[in-house]
């Protein structure tokens, strides 16, 4: 009964993100090739070059944008110049609007993510430890997980209204799915070889859990949390676009309604950059963990 469950890719990238997978992809590449003996240490040159190459695309886009706005290819009403966007960004920072909205958004992500991740850890671990519970829950869980986060919104609106609860619940749902599936995966894929060693040394259930299962599952669990957080951040913006009077997503909607496209684009950039940094940081943590907990000798 193990065989059909070893599909890694779909677990790591649940269906609901298919449309919005950009930051995950970026980091996924990095975490992926960092798995063997990390090359970044010995060859700073190579790493520097890699970062440079990665920065080339945004730089090129920026240049194109600048050119098009100077040549007036697109009306500045629709695509304001980089300078305008930058000064909009500065005024967002100086007025305190950005900080105010961001702090609200971050609070939402933190509480939603915490709720979703905790529940996900609990569900994933219990399914991973008890095959019976897994048989009981996993099919329904997978079926429910097929419903995109966005599709939950109408139903949950009826249930919770459009207040704070709705946002937290949706963010939690977004974090829940990857956390659960990766945790389950981590517990279930503990090598049989390790468990045999445990039997040779007469480990009881508690010892197996503490000395083998927990450290052995740590890396995939962390991966699940990483995807959970990225999903949480993405769904936050979605919720705030739809139903909010404050927060970073709301700031974007307002800007569009007032036709302040400079503010809108500046906000988009902030959202993207924060998501990128979050994922990068977690990818870094994952790489450090994998140095110790990854690949058995």
């Amino acid at each position, binding site marked *: 009964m193990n065989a059909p469950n070893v599909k890694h890719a779909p677990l790591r990238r649940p269906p609901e993100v298919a449309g919005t997978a950009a930051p995950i992809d970026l980091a996924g590449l990095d975490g992926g090739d960092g798995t063997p003996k990390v090359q970044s240490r010995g060859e700073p040159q190579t790493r520097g070059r890699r970062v440079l190459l990665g920065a080339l695309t945004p730089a090129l886009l920026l240049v194109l944008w600048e050119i098009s706005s100077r040549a007036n290819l697109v009306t500045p009403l629709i695509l304001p110049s980089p300078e305008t966007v930058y000064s909009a960004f500065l005024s967002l920072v100086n007025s305190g609007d950005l900080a105010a909205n961001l702090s609200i958004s971050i609070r939402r992500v933190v509480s939603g993510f915490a709720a979703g991740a905790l529940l996900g850890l609990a569900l994933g671990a219990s399914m991973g430890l008890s095959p019976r519970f897994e048989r009981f829950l996993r099919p329904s869980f997978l079926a429910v997980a097929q419903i995109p986060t966005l599709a939950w919104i109408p139903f949950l609106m009826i249930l919770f209204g459009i207040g704070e609860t709705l946002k937290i619940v949706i963010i939690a749902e977004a974090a829940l799915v990857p956390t659960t599936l990766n945790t389950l995966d981590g517990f279930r894929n503990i090598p049989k070889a*390790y468990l045999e060693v445990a039997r040779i*040394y*007469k480990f009881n259930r508690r*010892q197996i859990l503490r000395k*083998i299962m927990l450290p052995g599952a740590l890396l995939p669990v962390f991966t699940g949390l990483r995807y959970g957080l990225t999903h949480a951040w993405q769904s936050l913006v979605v919720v705030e676009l739809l139903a909010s009077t404050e927060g970073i997503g709301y700031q974007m909607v307002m800007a569009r309604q007032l036709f302040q496209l400079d503010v809108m684009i500046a906000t988009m950039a902030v959202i993207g950059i924060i998501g990128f940094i979050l994922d990068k940081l977690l990818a870094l943590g994952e790489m450090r963990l994998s140095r110790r907990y990854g690949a*058995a*000798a």
Partner: protein
Amino acid sequence: MTELGTLDIRNVKKRFKVAGEAFAAIDDLSLTVEPGEFLSLVGPSGCGKSTLLRLVSGLDGDYGGEILLGGKRVSGTSLRRGLIFQEPRLFPWLNVEGNIALALENATLSAEQKRASIAEHVSLVGLRGFEKAYPRQLSGGMAQRAAIARGLVNRPALLLLDEPFGALDALTRTHMQRELEHIWKTEGITMVLVTHDVDEAIYLGDRVVVMAPRPGRISKIVDVGIGRPRDRASPAFTWLKAEVLEALGETHAS
């Protein structure tokens, strides 16, 4: 260490179901191993030698016949019966010391005694100075030595070795065989070694049991009877090797 007595394997049968069809991994095998003996098991793949080892260790059960140790039927694993696998199976998140300490989780020793025992076995396998090293920092030979230290640290009365040097290069292998012989002599443990390597089987074994496949059974038992340390180039050694190889060849022909 406390003696566990004779290992008595009586009419053991073990069947596996492969693709719905039962086949006999071991068929009616009987064998006695005396306390303190070094027994080598050789045979082509599929002759049931690893299966037999797993049955004696208690990792696998559900067999016909009896496996007795000091007159008592073996059931489940025991700290008195150690098993060393073909791969080191060290835990990557623990250093050498930590990996060895795992074996003592359920030992009835004080913390102080455990520490002393770990240190003693680290030096026994020649890993002093590498206590804090993690598995990924060790060579294959060093990792296997750590695994051997882990297998020994409980002072099992019976140590089962499942091709422990199979993955090592020839030089490391020879070296490890000498060290294992040394450990066997100093600790007085009964050892049962499964190997593909006829040289290794003769170099280490008091007796060499040659097994045949389909169904897994004993085809010949060769008494080595040369003094230790053994010289692989000696005529007696060469002659024994020919005898074992011949027995192996017959199992192939049949």
